[in-house]
């Protein structure tokens, strides 16, 4: 049990928090037709993180985070510029920018000799969830002790506060987020700026992508921005319910994915665990497939079933 609280619990917490913060924000990206913004941002933070690392000279959280934030806001502006100046469609503009930023990140990484320190590309892609440790903990009772909780790794605390911030953002801006996502022109006519709301959303997306990125890597970030909201979308027609469901799905994928990755291989006679971030993303995808097939109203199979019943009548 000690092993669990020291080795597995912090990773579990980290993965779940990352899933939750990205999964909640993803709802609004999905409704705005910007689902791939998460994909874009999780690729463009790489040069920012490496740049922050190079400038600070150490693997400190703050400069890397600032660098990543800067990189994402820079990229979003660049995408906007390309879209407007060249009248290029959004998808192509995003594709041009995120691949370039990622390339820049890769080159910086190799150039800097950062390889081997802590940063490498594999790390950026699928993170290193398993390295989160809480050696100070001795038993589950420590979860109730504040002084012990403070010894949790920095990453977890950062992600915890950002998750809180994301929830606060959604609660406070629920109305403007909803109205600008549904009908931007109408919102603008009311004086609720869809442009600023969109920028706010991108900023929060960048913030949570950056926080999650260093712990779980880009693949989990992309998956969480899309899969839990898409799953919830299959299950409900009410925005508030959709938010709750996506949060639940995110947490569920986080927990089940981690357990499968950490312990699953041993059940089948394997000797090593597999990538937890990959497994969490895979679980989120799996849950989405279930929803797409079996959702009571919009699932493919239930639709097929109802259609046949109508035909028979």
């Amino acid at each position, binding site marked *: 049990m000690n092993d669990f609280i020291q080795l597995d619990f912090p990773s579990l917490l980290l993965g779940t928090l990352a899933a939750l913060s990205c999964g909640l924000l993803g709802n609004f990206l999905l409704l705005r037709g910007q689902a791939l913004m998460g994909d874009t941002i999780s690729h463009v933070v790489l040069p920012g993180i490496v740049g922050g690392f190079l400038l600070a000279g150490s693997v400190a959280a703050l400069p890397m985070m600032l660098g990543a934030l800067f990189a994402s806001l820079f990229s979003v502006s660049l995408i906007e510029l390309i879209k407007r100046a*060249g*009248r290029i469609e959004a998808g192509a503009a995003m594709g041009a920018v995120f691949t370039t930023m990622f390339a820049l990140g890769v080159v910086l990484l190799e150039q800097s000799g950062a390889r081997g320190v802590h940063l490498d590309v594999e790390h950026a892609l699928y993170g290193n969830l398993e390295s989160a440790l809480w050696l100070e903990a001795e038993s589950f009772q420590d979860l109730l002790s504040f002084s012990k909780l403070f010894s949790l790794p920095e990453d977890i605390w950062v992600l915890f506060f950002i998750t809180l911030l994301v929830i606060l953002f959604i609660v406070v801006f629920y109305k403007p987020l909803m109205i600008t996502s549904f009908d931007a022109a109408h919102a603008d006519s009311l004086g609720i700026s869809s442009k600023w709301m969109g920028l706010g959303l991108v900023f929060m997306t960048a913030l949570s992508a950056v926080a999650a990125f260093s712990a779980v890597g880009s693949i989990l970030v992309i*998956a969480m921005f899309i899969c839990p909201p898409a799953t919830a979308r*299959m299950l409900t027609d009410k925005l508030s319910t959709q938010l709750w469901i996506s949060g639940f799905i995110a947490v569920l994928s986080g927990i089940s994915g981690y357990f499968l990755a950490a312990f699953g291989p041993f059940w089948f006679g394997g000797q090593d665990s597999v990538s937890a971030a990959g497994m969490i993303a895979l679980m989120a995808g799996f849950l989405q497939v279930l929803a797409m097939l079996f959702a009571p109203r919009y699932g493919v199979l239930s639709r097929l079933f109802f259609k046949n019943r109508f035909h028979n009548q």
Partner: protein
Amino acid sequence: MSEFLAELIKALTLQAGYNTSLVLVGAALLGGAAGGIGVFVLLRKRSLVSDAISHATLPGVVLAFMLASYFFDDGRALWALLIGAAFSAVLGALAVEWIVRYTRLKEDAAIGTVLSTFFALGIVLLTLVQSVYQGGQAGLSDFILGSTAGLLYQDALLIAVSAFVVGLVLIFKFKELTLLCFDITFAKAQGYNVASLDRLLLFLLLAVVVIGLKTVGLVLVIALTIIPPVAARFWTERVSHMVLIATFIGALGSWFGAALSSVATDLPTGGLIVLTLFSIFLISLLVAPKRGALAHALRHKLFQRRVHERQGLLAISRAEPVFDPLTQKILRKKRFLRADGAVTEEGHQAAQKMARDQVLWNAYHQAYPIEALALEDWSLRPIEEVIPKDLVEELSEELMLTKVRLVQ
């Protein structure tokens, strides 16, 4: 530094050894083919499909490695890995289509779902492989970032030949694909099988992505299919020119990037190729004469000034005051207004001329509404500078006649 340059020039001119030259030719062929196909994909507004396809290759690569290791004892045969990649990329493309067609989710969500889920599966399999085949899997992660360093002679040949074949198919199907992107209803009416053309395009895209995996890696191969067409878009409005330009940009960028990486061996090939391509793109974005950002901003500024000048002069001709500060500023600069806001003699003259031109412009609009609205400088410049002189005379004669008739 000069040594580096000399090395680079040597590589660029194919004098840096047989293998390097083959890699360069292969990369250029690949970049050209990807750029050309990318134009059609861009025009069909499906650029990010390559994002889904390329990420979806990973589980195929890893599974192919596992199968190949089991059956042939060597999992690293490039052809086997590429077949695996193609197989799972096809599955990914089908999954995107399935989600869009049968669920309420839209294409962006479908692409995101497929790329993250397939890639996640690939990562899980990769970590599994790493624990089973300690060390034997080295090189598999090259598919993520690309590397030409360990490329064998027959691998480079495989890439070059397949890229060449893709290019050939593109040339033979050029007319049909152009039609598909330009006017899909017309293409249908002409009896073309649009669905199968779309599938052909997807297949070509898939081929480029798979061929490019080893050289530039699965993230950056997306760039090969997106950046050259987007850059070409700034230079021309015509599809055929766009394809030529994108092919050229793709080939040039890949050639140069690959040459760079053959000299600076510690830098990843894919990254260098993409950064080279993006530099070409950036130059296009800024300085292209037709659609470039600078030209566009300049034209817009000029247009705005003309509109303000026109509106100000018309106000003067109707003896109305000019309120808009920008209009005032422009009129003052042209000495149509004095500093105190009074209209100068030149101002009155210009206003009269503008008012007379407006009547003529309106007559022209009346007679040739479609042509009038298609004119960029309609009613902004003196009419005789824009439309033929005899037409202007015809218009003014007609106006005189009408006036006479009205008076009578």
